[in-house]
């Protein structure tokens, strides 16, 4: 089932009458294709969770429409939308066993959907097997690890056979090891069931690693949507560029003069056809090539060796980041001269942004 959001807006009244209303979601407009795993990505407080609540029907949008396939579900209550939701804290009922928790949604079915006891048991077992917790059916949530609770929550969401699965920060309450494991697990379950799945996260690494597509949000406003690598390689604005990638992108205050990019006094790269004026120049860590005669010179700090790669730490007065991190192949020898290290810049890893709006300024990249 594909999901279409049309001009979705949600504003909350201010806490007091004096406060301005807060816009959590502003004019959202996109389509989520069928059977994909989509990450809604953004810093905390950017409206991701509100978005999720609107999609599942817990909150009504102030304006706009939501379609599940052909059906307009904007005015439908949550239970009629056929969505499954997994909450950040799992929201398992603490006084019920795993089995009772998973069965709970089925017991709400009324009328023609009503299931017999046997059918329910079967569905519960099926869901439990899918997430591999069928050996824990009589435990209570408090007797399980975070990862197991998460699986129960997923089973409870899936038992209704929803057309759409929503996950709110599904990994944020897990420790680092479980996070990796659960991430794979979510991917596996999603692939196996083929249910269109939207998950919300503020962790870009998490989003990039498992999703088919990511949607980047900021302050309730849609920024960019696409396959993770595409968005990483081709950010539409400074925010997206900064938000994606670890280590973070290195942002310089720079100026374009006559088709050349000046960082400080260094003529760092050629940027043909770009209008003269101040810009932000952002370079991915992997966009630096150390060279004795490199066009960009930085103050050398140190080298971190990580085996296959090495990270060169340096600084530059024009750089927003206190430390410039450049990841280079371990074959490179770093020999600072008079405390300076010089780089050439890979131009497809260099993005220019308008100083005022932060919008991308594109230039023609030939093969480097």
């Amino acid at each position, binding site marked *: 089932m594909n999901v279409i959001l049309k001009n979705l807006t949600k504003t909350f009244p201010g806490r007091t009458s004096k406060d301005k209303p807060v816009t959590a979601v502003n004019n959202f407009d996109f389509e989520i294709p069928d059977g994909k795993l989509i990450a809604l990505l953004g810093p905390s407080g950017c409206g991701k969770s509100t978005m999720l*609540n609107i999609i*599942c*029907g*817990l909150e009504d949008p102030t304006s706009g429409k939501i379609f599940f396939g052909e059906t307009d579900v904007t005015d439908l*209550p*949550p*239970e*009629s939308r056929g*969505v*499954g*939701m997994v*909450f*950040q*804290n799992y*929201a398992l*009922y*603490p*006084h019920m066993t795993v089995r009772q928790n998973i069965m*709970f*949604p089925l017991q*709400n*079915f009324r009328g023609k959907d009503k299931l017999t006891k046997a059918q329910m048991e079967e569905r519960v077992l099926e869901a439990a097997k899918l997430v591999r917790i069928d050996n824990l059916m009589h435990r209570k949530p408090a007797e399980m690890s975070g990862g197991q609770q998460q699986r129960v929550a997923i089973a*409870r969401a899936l038992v*209704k056979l929803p057309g759409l699965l929503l996950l709110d920060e599904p990994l944020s309450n897990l420790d680092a090891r479980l996070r990796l494991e659960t991430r794979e697990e979510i991917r596996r379950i999603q692939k196996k069931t083929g249910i269109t799945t939207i998950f919300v996260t503020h962790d870009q690494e998490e989003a990039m690693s498992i999703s088919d597509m990511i949607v980047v949000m900021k302050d309730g406003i849609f920024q960019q949507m696409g396959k993770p690598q595409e968005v990483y390689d081709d950010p539409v604005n400074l925010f997206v560029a900064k938000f994606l990638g670890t280590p973070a992108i290195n942002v310089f205050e720079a100026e374009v003069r006559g088709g050349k990019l000046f960082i400080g006094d260094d003529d760092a790269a050629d940027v043909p056809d770009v209008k003269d004026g101040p810009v932000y120049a952002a370079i991915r860590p992997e966009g630096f090539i150390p060279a004795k005669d490199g066009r960009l010179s930085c103050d050398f700090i140190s080298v971190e060796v990580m085996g296959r790669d090495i990270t060169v730490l340096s600084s530059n007065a024009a750089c927003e980041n206190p430390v410039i991190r450049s990841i280079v192949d371990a074959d490179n020898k770093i020999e600072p001269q008079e405390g300076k290290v010089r780089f050439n810049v890979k131009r497809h890893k260099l993005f220019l942004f308008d100083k005022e709006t932060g919008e991308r300024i594109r230039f023609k990249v030939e093969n480097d």
Partner: protein
Amino acid sequence: MSNLKKKKGSAVLTVLKYVLLVLWALIVLFPFYWMVLTSLKGYADYNSEATPAFFTLSPTLENYVKAFTAVPLAKYFLNTFIFTVITTALMLAVIIFAAFAFARLNFKGKNLVFTLFLSLMMIPAELVVITNFVTITDLGLRNTFLGLILPSVTSVFYIYLLKENFEQVPYELYKAAKVDGTSDIKYLFKVLVPICKPTVVTVVILKVIECWNSYVWPRLITDDPDYFLVSNGIQEIRQNGFGRENIPAMMASVVVISVPLIILFLIFRKKIMEGVSRGGTKG
């Protein structure tokens, strides 16, 4: 030198502490001992002791028989039981619904209404009892269970206590239930109340204690011994019971009346003490 002194000082202090603690324990326990002891003394034995004896060699249960035969103690008991059960049950329903509305539903004027509710906590019962007495009298409900029960089926404090507890249950559980199409009523009784069972139990126990010991309102609203609760019963026994002098029989009734609550306390000791320390006061 100073170390030795310190050690000696702290030993004296420890002894003093235990003396104080034991002394107070004796003061607390003595009336209980005395009432049990006296209740076991024969009428003649008791009255022949010019100086009361600290033990009795010929314990008798005749006073207990008398307590149940000479005065309608069983009736008082039954009345108190009925009164306690119905009042507690009704109150529970009223406060659960109200607490749920405050904790989970959004409605216009919620904050205002809640503030008004809270401000009612400051109103002493003595102030409203006058009109309530007139109201119940005008409704012709004196000497009825309804008259006894009605004014005490709401407690703002318990609504407050329960609402706080309901709010501690993660809001996501409510959302999860909504996504699954669970009705509010089902959510309330299948999820919220079971999770908050400890608080509900505490409220029930506190209310039971309050009901069992209530004296003032029943005294105002009943003058027919058929509707007396144990407190009024004991007062009646004291004024006109076995003849003023039959103290052993009186003590037997006192024991009988005190025992249920003491048993309840010993079973639910932790819960009761926790509940009381969360804001209960002597009802």
